[in-house]
């Protein structure tokens, strides 16, 4: 083969910036490993110790606690659900107001600051602030989760809104639509699936986060976990773990199905799906191309 035209081969660019960044990151990681005060030797008996504790947890779990565990888990799920719903109701309009094309800087920045502050405050601290208002109740836990959700959902929301396709926005502007039209028909349709799946994901996080709030007396599975870990009732902890896993995975399946439904318009249970169809993964090339009309 020979060159057919006078186009010259370029020299390989050095890309110093990228190389420097990699060195910097590696350096930070190495420095962290080197400086942290850890007895790495403890890792040596990690396998043996893990086996021991796994046995203590699950061989057998404390079956007689199953009922109690389930009812505390239900309370946790209720806390998480209510917290998530409240978080959505508050964060949804706020994240519209924090998105770049939709609100002026003077509104946007304070809101983004608020989201960042909420994310910086530990859940326990939030919970204790709320506790002075609502007392030592699961409601306090739900409110703490709601506030936590506002921080993350608010951020995810405005990021999704900012990523909305610009074409429809322009089309709406050119046909004389106002602000409401822009939000309802320009921003929302293109970001809806993403935002909805954030909601579901946050619900999942809240179910797990409710474990922390058990500490301060908000009740739920977290409290039971806390008590039993304290007293090293490992078989009870094992039972609780089973319950937590079963319930979260059930929620995961349901929310996965909802997500598939939202994106593809079909109902499917993610775990079951593959068994039923068994087809090859979706491949752009293999599906018939859209038929041009005419």
């Amino acid at each position, binding site marked *: 083969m020979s060159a057919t035209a006078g186009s010259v081969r370029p020299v390989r660019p050095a890309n110093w910036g990228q190389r420097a960044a990699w060195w910097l990151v590696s350096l930070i990681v190495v420095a*962290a490993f080197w400086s942290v005060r850890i007895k790495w030797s403890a890792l040596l008996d990690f396998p043996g110790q893990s086996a021991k504790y796994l046995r203590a947890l699950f061989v057998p779990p404390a079956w007689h606690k199953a009922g109690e565990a389930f009812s505390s888990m239900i309370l946790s799920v209720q806390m998480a659900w209510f917290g998530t719903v409240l978080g959505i109701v508050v964060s949804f309009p706020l994240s519209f107001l924090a998105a770049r094309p939709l609100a002026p800087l003077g509104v946007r920045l304070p809101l983004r600051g608020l989201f960042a502050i909420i994310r910086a405050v530990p859940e*326990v601290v939030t919970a204790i602030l709320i506790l002075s*208002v609502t007392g030592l109740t699961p*409601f306090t836990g*739900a409110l703490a989760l709601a506030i936590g959700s506002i921080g993350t959902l608010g951020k995810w929301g405005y990021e999704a809104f900012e990523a909305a396709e610009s074409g429809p926005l322009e089309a709406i502007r050119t046909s004389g639509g106002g602000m409401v039209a822009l939000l309802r028909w320009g921003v929302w349709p293109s970001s809806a699936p993403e935002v909805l799946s954030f909601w579901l994901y946050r619900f999942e996080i809240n179910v797990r986060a409710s474990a*922390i709030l058990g500490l301060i007396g908000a009740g739920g599975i977290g409290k039971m976990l806390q008590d039993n870990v304290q007293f090293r009732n490992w078989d009870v902890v094992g039972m609780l773990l089973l319950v*937590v896993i079963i319930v979260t995975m059930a929620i995961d399946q349901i929310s996965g199905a909802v997500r598939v439904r939202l994106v593809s318009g079909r109902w499917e249970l993610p775990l079951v799906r593959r068994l039923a169809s068994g087809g090859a993964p979706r491949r752009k090339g293999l599906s018939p191309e859209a038929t041009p009309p005419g």
Partner: protein
Amino acid sequence: MIPVDGSGQRPTARPSRPDHRLRTGIVIVLVMAITVWSARGIDVDPAAILANWPNAVGNLVQLFQPDYSFFPQTLPALVETLQMAVIATAVGSALSLPLAFGASRAANPNLTVLRVVRFVMNLVRSVPDILYAAILVAIVGVGALAGILALVLFNIGIIVKLVSEALDGQDLGAQEAALAAGGSWFGANRMSLLPQILPSFASQVLYTFELNIRASTVIGLVGAGGLGLLIDNVRNYFLYHYLSLIIVEILVLVVLLEGFSSWLRKKLL
């Protein structure tokens, strides 16, 4: 005014409007029902908020007055938190990258492996971080190691989920091209999918780093070191002006990371 001239047009039948009202109604009723059920379960009491909101104000006022002179005393804990977060993020993301490929329908042709990886990942994700910390403290003892291990498990759960979703959303044309050129699945994934998901991987890693800094406040509760332990001490003595300094420190880290993350995304995309 009617914009149709009707002349010489092929008559096309107007479709009737599909009725989604029932479906929408069911969804709304269902969501409301679950919410009401939850509200009853947790004894929602809005009246208490109206009556008692001033109670929180006093503490909030104190929280808004950070005592910067406390900063030197927070440094060791801050550094320990950062160390834990850096190590956990590095180890977690290194482990999650191959796992994410294993958990992605698009990248993993082996259904059995796919199902096993996904199941294990679901397991890993469903355990609360504080529980990881508690059990690991029992296994390897108290301190940063237990914290790091807990964070690593926590990180793997998140990164694998988000990155494998990103993988599933990729256009698979390039992967097909690589396979059609005789590449193995490994080679095809490495060359075609990896470059495509790097930006989203990078931003997930930064997001997890932020989460790790925040999570250290939780795992500190069970004695896993870092800012969490410090927070526990100052709040038990109601040193809110110290607590708020720690919060400010976390806030600065969160904001820095967010800025860096969006800068990096812009650069990589």
